[in-house]
Every structure is written in structure tokens, then in C-alpha cells.
């Protein structure tokens, strides 16, 4: 349903923003040439037929060719997908690991100096816009300390259809700053979510029970408390993963990251409709797929829900 709605909106964008014929045939084409293009691309047929065609092709994974490169739009995007996916994966990993860890620390010792510093930092994470955060990281690690490269993806290794940057030191160095930038907001959200959850759970009766059994503080906090907190936290993290993939545009453009977000920016400048439309469809698809995965994960974590 959602995909259908998105596809319809995409189609409208595709069809009614600017005249594709003008784009395809060029400004100086004759009337006759334009008609030929119109027929060749099926643009002369009624609206609903065009939409049906569009849908049918989309189902087959055929979104048309990029106007610019004349390469299949889907292929263009899929080629960029690994870069974005790896960036988002690293970012979500950083925000989950650091967010949960710091959230637990803050909830155990709420009044301490360390906790106050962490909470202040998390406020920064939420309120500093992505581009500013990116620039700050670049200033610190690339300009001032000169530890990390300021842009690009570095050395990559091709494995089958997948081009990965995880396998070379250079690739890993390149991913740190963009991933930190992309994870900033999410990290702060997860930290605050973990803290709120831990506060609530630590005052539950079953935590009192756990203490009264003589369990170690680590077991009580990690096994009995954190496990209950992780249910909503993992749900949120999972849901935001889709968003990170789909909307890493700002981060990718700051660091010249060769991912889908950067491609989208270029395509928008070039009014390359098939690529834009494919990107939007992909984004919708990814978010939907991740929603389903998260639902399953949630059910697995929470014994009260059972899908039969």
C-alpha cells in the first residue's frame, strides 16, 4: 500500500515536473523529432496507461535509464548503495554502542560530574545541525590533528557486486568522520532513551527481586534492567537505520562520500528524473523493509508478543 502510494507520487513527479521531452530531445529538436521521442518513451499514451506501464516496469526493477548517463537508473543507484549502507551501518553501530553505554552510566550515577558532562554533550548532539557537526569534526581531526582524511571513501575492495571500504585501513580511516557526523543526533537520542528507560526499569519490583537474590550489580543492571530497556531502544535504532540510509544526503555531501545521497544531489541539479524517482522508491522500500525487520526483532526480544 505504502509503496503504491509512493510510486504514484513518484510517477506524478516524473511526469509533471518539467517536460521530459524537452530534456530528452534537447532544446533545439524539431517538432517532428519531439513527437518521435514522445512516442518512443510512450509519453503520448493516456495518463493511466503510462502509470500502469511505470508500475509494471518498476515491479520488474526497471525504472528507466538515467537521462544523463543513459545507464539503467536502478543500476546507478545500486552501485552507490554499498557506500551509503556501510556509512549508515557504522553510524548506527556507533550510536547504539555509545548511546546505550553512556545512557547506562548516566542512569546509574545520575548526579555525578561525568553524568552531567554526558548529558550536556547529548544536548549538543541533538541541537547542533549535521553540517556544523561535520565541519567541526573536519576541523578537529583533519585540519588541526591531521589524523583523518577530510573527504572521500578511500581504498575499497570489490567483493562480487559489493564494494566495501571495511577491509582496508584507509577505508576505515575515511569512514570514521562521516559516521561520527551521521551518528551524532541518533547517539544523543539513544542515550536519552536509554537513560529514561533505565530510570523507569531500575525502580521496578523485579529489579528489587533481582537484588534480593544476591546477584552482582553487573547482572542486575545488564541482564535484568538493560534487557528490558533495549526493547524500545533497539526498535528506535532499527527504525532510524532506514532513515540514515535514505537521508544521509547532508553528511555525504560534506565528506564527498560516493553514496546514494550524493548521487541524489547531483541528479536533482541535473533534473535526472528517472534517478530521482528510483531513489525515492528505493528509500521507501528500504524504510518499509526495515520496519518489517524491526517488527520481527521486537517480537523476538519481547516475549509478550508472539506471531503465529
Amino acid at each position, binding site marked *: 500500500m505504502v509503496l503504491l502510494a509512493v510510486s504514484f507520487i513518484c510517477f506524478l513527479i516524473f511526469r509533471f515536473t518539467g517536460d521530459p521531452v524537452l530534456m530528452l530531445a534537447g532544446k533545439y529538436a524539431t517538432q517532428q523529432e519531439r513527437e518521435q521521442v514522445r512516442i518512443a518513451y510512450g509519453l503520448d499514451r493516456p495518463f493511466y496507461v503510462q502509470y500502469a506501464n511505470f508500475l509494471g516496469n518498476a515491479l520488474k526493477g526497471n525504472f528507466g535509464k538515467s537521462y544523463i548517463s543513459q545507464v539503467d537508473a536502478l543500476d546507478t543507484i545500486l552501485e552507490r548503495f554499498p557506500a551509503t549502507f556501510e556509512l549508515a551501518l557504522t553510524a548506527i553501530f556507533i550510536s547504539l554502542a555509545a548511546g546505550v553505554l553512556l545512557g547506562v552510566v548516566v542512569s546509574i550515577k545520575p548526579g555525578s560530574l561525568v553524568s552531567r558532562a554526558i548529558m550536556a554533550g547529548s544536548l549538543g548532539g541533538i541541537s547542533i545541525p549535521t553540517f556544523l557537526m561535520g565541519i567541526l569534526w573536519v576541523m578537529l581531526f583533519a585540519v588541526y590533528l591531521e589524523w583523518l582524511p577530510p573527504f572521500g571513501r578511500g581504498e575499497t575492495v570489490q567483493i562480487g557486486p559489493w564494494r566495501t571500504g571495511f577491509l582496508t585501513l584507509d577505508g576505515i580511516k575515511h569512514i570514521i568522520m562521516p559516521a561520527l557526523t551521521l551518528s551524532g543526533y541518533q547517539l544523543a537520542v539513544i542515550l536519552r532513551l536509554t537513560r529514561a528507560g533505565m530510570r523507569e526499569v531500575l525502580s521496578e519490583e523485579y529489579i528489587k527481586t533481582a*537484588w534480593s*537474590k544476591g546477584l552482582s550489580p553487573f547482572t542486575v543492571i545488564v541482564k535484568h534492567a538493560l534487557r528490558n530497556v533495549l526493547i524500545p531502544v533497539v526498535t528506535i535504532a532499527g527504525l532510524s537505520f532506514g532513515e540514515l540510509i535514505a537521508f544521509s544526503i547532508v553528511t555525504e555531501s560534506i565528506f564527498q562520500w560516493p553514496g546514494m545521497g550524493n548521487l541524489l544531489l547531483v541528479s536533482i541539479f541535473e533534473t535526472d528524473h528517472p534517478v530521482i524517482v528510483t531513489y525515492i522508491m528505493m528509500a521507501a522500500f528500504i524504510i518499509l523493509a526495515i520496519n518489517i525487520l524491526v517488527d520481527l526483532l521486537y517480537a523476538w526480544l519481547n516475549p509478550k508478543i508472539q506471531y503465529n
Partner: protein
Amino acid sequence: MDKNTLKPVLSIDNLKTHFFSRKGVARAVDGVSFDLTPGEVTGIVGESGCGKSVTALSVMGLVPNPPGRVVDGKILFHQKNLLDLNIKELRKIRGAGIAMIFQEPMTSLNPVYTIGNQISEMFRLHKGYNKKQALDAAVDMLDRVQIPSPHKRVHEFPHQLSGGMRQRAMIAMAMSCDPEILIADEPTTALDVTVQAQILDLMHRLKDEFSTAIQLITHDLGVIAEMADQVVVMYAGQVVEQAGTRELFQHTLHPYTRGLLASIPVLGHRTRGMDEDLTEIKGMIPSLYDLPAGCRFSNRCPQVMDKCKTHLPELTEMGGGHRVRCWLHTKGTTL
């Protein structure tokens, strides 16, 4: 056996647990003393807010700190003062020597782990069992608390069990390492009457079987009448009367205890809320931040005298272990 020859397994002596907040100091437990004897049920009774739970948590070393802290007294368990132990030593006693069950069976089990997992934890921690041995032992315990088809139940989550079953599982967990003391904080308050009777019955049976000392906390004198050997009546953080159960019911001395007794509804028709029950005692329990100067019950006592309002009576031995804190019965006045 003569009761007086049995050595207490736990002696609480002049325990003071206070809560510190901006409003001031709440003396939630203020000089409480009593003993627990093996194979006996000691009932702690009093209106809600009088310090019953805080007393129990003090024994377990689980008073939320901040804001609370044990400020004075001794809790002797096998000649050792629990208040002097470090966290490691205390952890060995929690669960193994002194176990505790709580009021809400719904919330006192962890919702994301199976019953088996949560009971196994006790065996693994205190007896060093491996996973398999611990699970077998858990099945055994479920059987002992009369949970039907324990092999199946052991793999179920708390939400799959009824309230009564959950409390049985809770008892199974608490009793799994054969503790010398079981502290039960209102274990049946949240259950309906028939289930309540079954759970009390089960606790009684297990107590005889393991000769456990039980500290049974309740606001219900009906439960006390059925279960307890000894009764400690608490009011506003202090013990106001203390006696053997029969003695207490037959020769009630303290006006507060009389009020509680008069408010026991007809047996089998116990209601949950304390407020409805206590129609016989007028007025409200005083705020711990704003206690009356003399006897803490003086603002509600039907027999209040002038002296009561200015001077706090001592807990006085009346013979045969019957103690009471009231100017009506304390002869040696300080005036």
C-alpha cells in the same frame, strides 16, 4: 518445644532507618526491635506507610540510598551484624540465607525471562550448578510449590501464568536455596481470597518442611490470625505492641491494636484497601515529617490523656513477652 529455648535466627535491635529529603528527615523506622525464630511466623502488622517494608529492606540491605539510610541499630544474623558487612558478604546472604518475596507477583518477576531462567539463577549463583542441573532443580521447585506440569511451566514467561501461579513461582524462587529466613512483604494482598488462602497454606507447609523463619508483613490481622506465631504491631515507624498471637488477640493492650482488631471484617470478606477497613480508627496516620510530640498515636487515640501529648511512652514488658508502648499500661512515669 518451649518457645523460649529456641534461639532466634535474626535479631533486629533498635533499628533506625531514615529518609533524608528537602522536606526534612522521615524517621520511617525509628528504634524497631524484634527477633525471628526458626520454624515460626512473625507477623508485622500496621497501616500502610508505617515502616513495614522499610524494615524488611533494611534487613536485606536494599534501602534506596539516597534518600534512605540505616542510621542506627543492629541486625544480627548468626552473630554477625548485617549492617557491618560489605556488599560482597551481603550478597552471599541475600537469596541464600535470607530470601524475600514481594507484594505484586505481576511485577516482581522479570517479564523478559522464563520462570525457569529466573529460578535457575538462584541455583547457579549460590550453589554453582550448571545450566542443566539448575533447570532440573527449578522444575523440582515448581513441583514443590504445586505448580501443575512444571516441565512445561518452567519454559513459560511470567505473563503466561495467573497471579496465583506467579506468586507460587516467586515462592519457589525464594525458597530454592533453602533460606533460613523468608521475608514476605504482603505476599497475598494483590490476590483474591481463595488464591490468598492457598498461598498462605503453601507458605505454612514449606515453613514446616524447611523450618524457615518467616517474617510475614501484612496490614491484615485476619492473615495474622491464621498464620502468625508472634505479632509485631507497628505504628509510624515504631513498635507499639508485641506478643504471641493468641495473647495479642485475647489480651489486646494498645488502643491502636484494638482499633485494628475492631476493623477486621467478617472472615472471608476481607477487602483490599486499608482505608475502608479502618473505619474504627478515626483520622489519618501522621506525616513522618510532622509527628505529634508525645505518643505518635495521640492525635487519633480514643483514650488519649494529657501526658500522651507531650511524652512518648517506652515499649514496656508486661510479662510473658507481651510488650506495649502506651501510658495506659506503663506505670513508671517520667513525670
